[in-house]
């Protein structure tokens, strides 16, 4: 194929993916009457839609909630997941194989089957409308464990033996010897967990009704379906832009890590 044609196709594709986002951002700055326009420019740009959104919904509080929930899950998924992964790859104990099989099996269970019972569990524990309901069910990830196990298997046994001879206990070995060597897998698991939790919206909609505890995607989704937006497109687009912004900024800086971690979900198939 002529390379000119290739670049035209590639650039056309790029426009298809980027233009809608640019349109969303610039339209959120336009007065309501101009939002139907295709163009990206207006002489009447203003932040009025953003001011309205900030007044109408506690979106900054929701941002904080999302950060708290995602950061907590990410921390436990990495720490607990790496401990299990380490035990499964490097420690000898009866039942190890069976446990690993069990973990692989849980990854095959469609979530639809446990969703309602999990919700009822939260109700019974009195955890609805608390951070616990948002964090506890995603504290450990089977996929994270499998990734850690796989990676740890590639670390030379001699290194671990040497540390044991020096009198290190297993906790020290994992966090002092293995961790510095495991940056790629830690980044992958951490980013994947953070993103999954950050974008999760179904579970928060089930267990949180209290506005001050809602996560960012949840509050924006409810803003768009409820009456608060007063059918003003500008408010909706401003709220959607605020929701997209933190991730787009992070993506701009750490693009490679995002692509690598999210593509790793495809490798489990």
């Amino acid at each position, binding site marked *: *194929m002529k*390379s000119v044609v*290739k*670049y035209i*196709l*590639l650039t056309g*594709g*790029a426009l*298809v*993916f*980027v233009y809608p*986002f640019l349109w*969303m951002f610039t339209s959120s700055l336009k007065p309501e009457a101009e*939002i139907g326009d*295709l163009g990206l420019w207006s002489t009447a740009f203003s932040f009025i839609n953003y001011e309205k959104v900030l007044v109408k919904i506690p979106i900054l509080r929701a941002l904080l909630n999302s950060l708290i929930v995602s950061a907590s899950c990410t921390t436990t998924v990495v720490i*607990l997941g790496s401990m*299990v992964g*380490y035990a499964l790859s490097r*420690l*000898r*104990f*009866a039942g190890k194989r069976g*446990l690993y099989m069990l*973990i692989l099996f849980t990854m095959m269970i*469609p*979530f*639809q*089957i*446990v*969703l*309602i*019972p*999990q*919700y*009822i569990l939260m109700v019974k524990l009195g955890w609805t409308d608390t951070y616990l309901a948002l964090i*506890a*069910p995603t*504290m*450990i990830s089977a996929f994270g464990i499998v990734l850690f196990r796989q990676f740890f298997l590639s670390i030379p046994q001699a290194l671990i033996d040497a540390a044991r001879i020096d009198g290190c206990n*297993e906790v020290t070995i994992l966090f002092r010897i293995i961790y510095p060597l495991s940056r790629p897998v830690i980044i992958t698991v951490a980013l994947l967990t953070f993103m999954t939790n*950050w974008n999760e*919206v*179904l579970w928060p909609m*089930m267990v949180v009704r209290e506005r001050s505890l809602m996560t960012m*995607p949840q509050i*924006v*989704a409810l803003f*768009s379906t409820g009456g608060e937006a007063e059918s003003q497109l500008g408010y909706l*687009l401003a709220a*959607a832009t605020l929701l*997209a912004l933190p991730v*787009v900024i992070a*993506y701009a800086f750490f*693009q490679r890590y*995002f*692509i690598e971690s*999210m*593509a790793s*979900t*495809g490798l489990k198939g």
Partner: protein
Amino acid sequence: MSRRAALLAAIRRSDTNGYIFVLPYVIFFLAFVAYPLVFSFVLMFHRWNLVSPMEWVGSKNFIRLVQDPLFFKSLFNTLTFLAIHIPLQIFAALGFALLLNTRIRGRGFFRGIYFLPVVVSGVAVTILWQQLFSFDYGVLNSLLRLAGLGRVPWLIDANIAMPSIAVMATWKNVGIYIVLFLAGLQGIPRELYEAARIDGASPLRQFLYITFPMLNPTIIIIVVLSTIGGFSLFIEPYVLTGGGPMQSTLSGMLYIYNQAFYFGHMGYAATLGFVYAAVIFLVVTVQRRVIERDIAT
């Protein structure tokens, strides 16, 4: 030595650290996987709205399900979604991946752009597309008008609404599959193409007889992941259409959610969840078989 004694001996030889390290997972598994699984089987045979006491109803939930037109509607809607989403996704992702796999400048740049919608929250993407799809002032209809064509009732027509959502989902997810196809393409040994060229195979035949079969594992992954994604469709119809028009975008997950949270039918919602999970399991298993056999022959 009996098996019991052998097991005990094995446990005695075991590293206690192993048990300590896996303990958090075992607790997590019991609380958030095993208990819900067992409890879902209990729920399926009860009627319960969380407030009044649970009431045993035997197989009534299942009898109700096989007579429930909305259940079949949601199943049909999901299959409609998949029938459009999967081929479109494979076609688009493979097309871009083939372009990116040639000798070009800026591969990383383009890949990064195509991946952008993958990382952005589905809620933001859905609100954005709600405006693009808007009948009167939407960007898509404005473009069609510029091209001298008529407007399309993207979300208003019951026959078009689900396909519209499938197009949106493809736009959002295609980046991840481009990356997977690229990895697959780079894994194909160059010698295969060299041998084919020497034998005089045309580029088209090289694609059909080398590239496509060698990408089989990637295609299986894409089909399976898209299927699971299709059956999990929730926030898109929730925000865009609320399941309408005429229930045409009522997805399985949205129906489960409505049964549980609008009607308070926890038992029936759990039954729906179980049947949906069984359907997903079945569909994914069949897909793997079919794709593996098709390419092998």
